[in-house]
């Protein structure tokens, strides 16, 4: 089991950032690598247990299940059901915390998963930087001041 942790500061109030990221079906609106997304079986996107099915710009398809969603804590978590990444037992959490100084947002995103030992380092880099940090950078442009 390895853990990947990425955190950043978004120059926008936590309410505004949360409004963007709480939509489990909203990845195409704020990440650079998701081309299209839908929630399976017509469920609402904030119902625990719903599955998002999205296609990456490079063609890969990923299915993820929403495990928790808290508007009080600005936090959600999800697991991967299917993906081309080659990971197992993948659970990720995205959490926002207000930064009172400057009315900004501290954003954390971490994941735990299993994979072949020789792929650990490459996957940690790919997920931590290629996915989480890249998404944060894109989020800064979408919601930032």
């Amino acid at each position, binding site marked *: 089991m390895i853990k990947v*942790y*990425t*955190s*950043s*500061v978004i120059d926008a109030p936590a309410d505004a950032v949360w409004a963007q990221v709480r939509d489990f079906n909203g990845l195409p609106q704020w990440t650079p690598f998701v081309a299209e997304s839908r929630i399976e079986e017509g469920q609402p996107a904030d119902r625990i247990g719903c599955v998002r099915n999205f296609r990456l710009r490079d063609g890969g398809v990923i299915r993820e299940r929403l495990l928790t969603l808290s508007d009080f804590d600005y936090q959600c978590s999800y697991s991967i059901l299917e993906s081309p990444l080659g990971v197992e037992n993948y659970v990720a959490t995205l959490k926002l*915390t*207000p*930064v*009172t*100084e*400057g009315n*900004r947002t*501290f954003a*954390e995103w971490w994941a735990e998963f299993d994979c072949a030992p020789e792929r650990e380092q490459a996957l940690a880099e790919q997920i*931590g930087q290629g996915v989480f*940090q890249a998404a*944060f950078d894109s989020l800064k442009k979408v919601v930032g001041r």
Partner: protein
Amino acid sequence: MIRLRRSAVIDAPIERVWAVLRDFNSHSAWHPAVGPSEIENGEPSDQVGCVRNFTLKDGNQIREQLLALSDRDHVSTYCILDATLPMRNYVATVQLKRVTDGDRTFWHWESTFDVPRGREREFDQLVGGEVYEAGFTALAAYLRRDGRPVSRLAAVDSQGVVATSFGGPEVLQLRRLDSPAPKSGEVRLRQTAIGVNYIDVYIRKGLYRMIEPPAPIGMEAAGVVLESDAPGVRPGDRVAYACTPPGGYVTVRTLPADQLVLLPDHVSEETAAALMLKGMTAEYLLHRTYRVKPGDTVLVHAAAGGVGLLLCQWASALGARVIGTVSSEAKAELARANGCEHPIVTRSYSFAEKTKQASGGRGADVIYDGLGHDAAQENLEALAMRGHWVSYGQATGALEPLNLSGKSGTLSQPVLFHYTQDHLQQMAGRVFTAARDGILKPNVRHRYPLAAAANAHRDLEARRTSGQIVLLP
């Protein structure tokens, strides 16, 4: 109940921010609202349960207790015990998180407390604004100042006394030396007093192979920080060290900040240079290897020696009955004047019978033995049932294997460095507090210029000195 939450992002790595905040007594150094602050009872400032007693710049007095501290999670929780402010049930938590994007630090500070009805807004502003928010700004500035000294000098003129080879005092010669600029985590200090210890003689002679000549010797010194690239240490701070690798006989030294102790105002640099090594030795012997209790019988060998006198002073203050061995009547008087109730004059290591007499036949609950081989049989005789024999030096040769089962005895062979590597701040703090309270009485009787270090060694080896010796650069 008021619930406050304030947070900020500090432009420094989490390790640097945490190094300051984990120290429960650091706030007087960086927080603009905090005046003098002290940890009560000489406890270490990162020990859960310790109490900081401080004055705010506005005159209010507060006592706060550390309730939890996690180096893994970077969390510190504390509460107010007493305050001249009308705050009740105050519990606060500081938590740091790493901002991986830019290697910065997210700092979250929250608390809950009660105040008299109608004064909520006032205290929201006081605590949230003048304590938390002002603290964010001040610590950020404090860390910036730490990292970028006003005048960074690539090289500083330094001189040092070098053992040019192993041998007599004549091998000690004054040389020009390089003093490198401090790297991350290091400081450069101008030394103002250097302690001389007998171990320096052993190292000079090559009996302890701790240097490769030519190299400076010296185990302890004190001085003033010139430059710092370490959090929590600033130019102008008065500091001291002991137990670093040899190299203390120099005018300017660069070394890791975690080997330094900040000097309280009441401890002079000369006292620190004379006291740190021997005082911390007495500290671990009396408080760690064995915890001396009131009523214990303590046997101290070489009771009029440098460490011996400190052991007598401190053990008697702890309520122990102190028995000591010395080699002359004059030394017996000196030991007696320093807390040794029963000095035994002996040149033949014969003391067991008198130790038993002085302790009502019981023997010594703890023996502090720097003698080793030649006194072993008498020590075994002098040891009380279930007694603790602490062999911290072997001046007459190595101990042979012992059978302590006749008394269910315990033997320790402690080394100072093994204690300081984890407890330096706590040990030094307890020594300085004991000196302030008059329990330890450092006695600097001999001062030599640094360049005359060879003379200091000659006098030390010829037993022409008593009390502590310092070199003055």
